[in-house]
């Protein structure tokens, strides 16, 4: 009896280890996460509009139907990325995700405070390599550090009414994401 209790106790301990390690390994092992879904649909380092979710097809689950979205699947190994996103009338936001869908930075149009959201995305190493000149590090350019070399920039713009969707889409189509040095 005691022997069986010991076996069961051991099984529970071991089960706990199995549970924790599978939970921690899941983001690395996932084949249907957001990044993997976007690989066949998006080129690297370019901003492309995403198809709006419909009842038949949705690129990702739980996409907001009132929003139009564009995505830039980035790879910083070739240099830092410049993002330029014109604002639409109602609400525009930019969210940065790591390769494993962790949102590490998000900014909306009001926080950006200008006619467009303009920023530079780079790895911490690239940031450290920037020349320490006053005008480069001046606050008029926003510099974001990406914790991973690859990831996603998702631009979202709200159409407050369905009739405004075409206008919002046109505004998003002008957004740019490309490799370029900090100026």
């Amino acid at each position: 009896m005691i022997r069986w209790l010991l076996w069961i106790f051991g099984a529970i301990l071991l089960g706990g280890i199995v549970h924790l390690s599978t939970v921690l390994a899941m983001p690395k092992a996932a084949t249907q996460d957001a990044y993997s879904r976007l690989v066949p649909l998006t080129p690297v380092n370019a901003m492309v509009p995403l198809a709006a979710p419909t009842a038949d097809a949705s690129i990702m689950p739980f996409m907001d139907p009132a929003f139009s979205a564009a995505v830039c699947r980035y790879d910083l190994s070739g240099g830092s990325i410049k993002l330029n996103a014109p604002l639409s009338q109602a609400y525009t936001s930019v969210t940065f995700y790591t390769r494993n869908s962790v949102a590490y930075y998000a900014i909306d149009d009001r926080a950006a405070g200008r006619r467009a959201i303009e920023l530079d995305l780079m790895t911490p190493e690239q940031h450290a390599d920037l020349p320490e000149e006053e005008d480069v590090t001046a606050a008029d350019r926003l510099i974001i550090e990406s914790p991973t070399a690859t990831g996603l920039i998702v631009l979202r713009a709200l159409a407050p009414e369905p009739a405004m969707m075409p206008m919002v889409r046109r505004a998003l189509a002008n957004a740019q994401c490309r490799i370029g040095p900090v100026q």
Partner: protein
Amino acid sequence: MRLLFGSFFTLMLAAAIGLGATWFTTTRGVAFGSLTIGAWKSWPKSGSTDIDPYARAAIARTGELPLGMGDGVAFYARTDDAGNNLDGRCTFTISGMTPAARYWTLALYDPDGRLVANAIDRHGFTSAEIIRDAEGRFAISVAPRARPGNWLPSGGIERFVLVWRLYDTPIGVATRTTKEGPMPAVARKACT
């Protein structure tokens, strides 16, 4: 022989416990630091680098991208205020007040996060298009058949999920009480 059998039993049990717990926690949305207001549940930390391992695993499994913390907060409802499942064959009303936010949107999904097909192609409302009364309050009817006023078609599916997203809002990780965030009430009316 006994040792062999015992260790085999232990390993099988351990695998069953471990994988079962992982499946359970990632499919049922067990994540720490949830904020519950009435029927609405939110995980504001999921939109930041403070996201816990369970939420990370759940997001990797479903393939969704959580709303970033500087962008907005999403509240999910799978039941009404009384705990009844959201059944597309019943009529539900959503009414009351919303927390401060520049914009909000409401959307209806099936449990897997897909939009639900309907004749008028409406999948949700935004704060700009909702019809309000003189005091600024609103009532939304979620029902399989047309209703006057703000009608959100549920397509008659067995289970649906409502997602309320607040954009540019002070609601977030620091929110503790329902006083700061008065979320709309969800109540079941008639079932057909």
